[in-house]
């Protein structure tokens, strides 16, 4: 497996974004909690997680099933 600087930047941005979102949610939890009930937040979180999982499964499936030569940046 070859990890290019572009991959590393992408991963760093992704993780940074994730951490920033969590921090914002934790800091503003009292305001956020007012928008929806606890049950509704659970459903919203599951819907969000479903999208992320579907995305990851799709990417992993592509990575496993398609040859590496097809992954040329911008020309996939």
């Amino acid at each position, binding site marked *: 497996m070859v990890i290019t600087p572009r991959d590393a930047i992408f991963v760093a941005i992704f993780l940074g974004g994730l951490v920033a979102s969590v921090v914002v949610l934790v800091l503003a939890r009292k305001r956020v909690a007012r928008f929806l009930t606890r049950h509704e937040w659970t*459903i919203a979180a599951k819907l969000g997680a*479903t999208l992320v*999982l579907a995305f990851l*499964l799709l990417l992993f499936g592509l990575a496993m099933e398609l040859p590496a030569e097809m992954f040329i940046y911008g020309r996939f």
Partner: protein
Amino acid sequence: MFENGWFWAALLILFATFHVVDPRHTRVRAAALGLISAVVLVVVLDIDPWSLAVLAAAVACVPVGLHLTRSLAKERPNAAALVVLAPVLAAWITGKLAFALELTPARALFFVGFSFFLIKAWTTIKDVQDGRLQRPDPIVFVALSLCFPTYVAGPMHYYGELEETLRKPARLDGSAIVDIVFRVLLGLFKIRVLTPLLKPLSLDALATGEVAFTPVTLVGASIVYSAVIWSDFSGYSDLAIATTRAVGVRTPENFAWPYAATSVRDFWQRWHITFSRVLTSYVFVPVTRALTRKMADKPRVVMVLGYIATFLFCGYWHGATANFLIWGLVHALAFIAYDLYRPWATKRRLKHRAARGASGGGRALAIRGASIAGTFLFVSLAWIFFVLPLPVLVEKLRW
């Protein structure tokens, strides 16, 4: 199973059938579940005809046995339960042993899912003989035995649980649909992404020789294997729970954050829950009760023998080779040590609390963290016996 198109087609047919048949007609619903499951097992699992005959005989054996031993059960319930279970147990022990030793004619006695069937049979028989269950319906028992989403890897229903959920199906509202879709994707993610990513770094890689065998890699690989086995097994449980829920059947949870356990006892209350509850109520309790009648004045000996018997069964249930028995024995010894340590630790904690007052939250947190880490390390190291065959381990340990 879940990656086969026939599985999902069968689930759709079951969904339509359950939608049409009123829940009051429990037997019809059970018959549909049993019949569709039988077709799925033949088509998807490709069970050979001989094993299929053994499976059919084993399933039929329980209701017939319960009927025949009804008069004996009134006077000697335990003896009656053992009489009904004996043919199934004998076939399971022989078949499992023959399968492990690759003995050709006898290994046909063992079929995929036999160990799970044994548990379902034993719990049903014991429930009848103990009076918790009155005359189980043979059709519901067939559905319990063959229920296709949970057949290969659980979670395992008790007879009463399945009958109740067939009679009072779970409602399928918007929130349930979100939960089902999330659970299916979570299960697929664990099985198709997490497990294959971690497996090359786990004990499996040591067994195949892909990773060099040293003390450091052994410990590291056993820790990674903890993640692999949880991800794979709980992934299948997620899929089974979600797919049965889609047809209105509630399936009990099988995992509850097992690696957050603070002791080996806590671990077994969180790991493979539908099996460990059987170990407690249907193996450990009857064994210790029987032993207490003979040696009431030696409770510690009873406890030690009870744990050893329960976990030797647990080991054999997972595989009929020496390494599985050692794995079971290691857990039994941990239980014994924990039970001996617990009263002393409680006394010490109370003494400490009395001396310092109710404060000391930091210390409690540190103890909790250390307990979780210690339990995780113990469970991880014990997986070594679970994965590596004894001859391989003995050979490789001569560094």
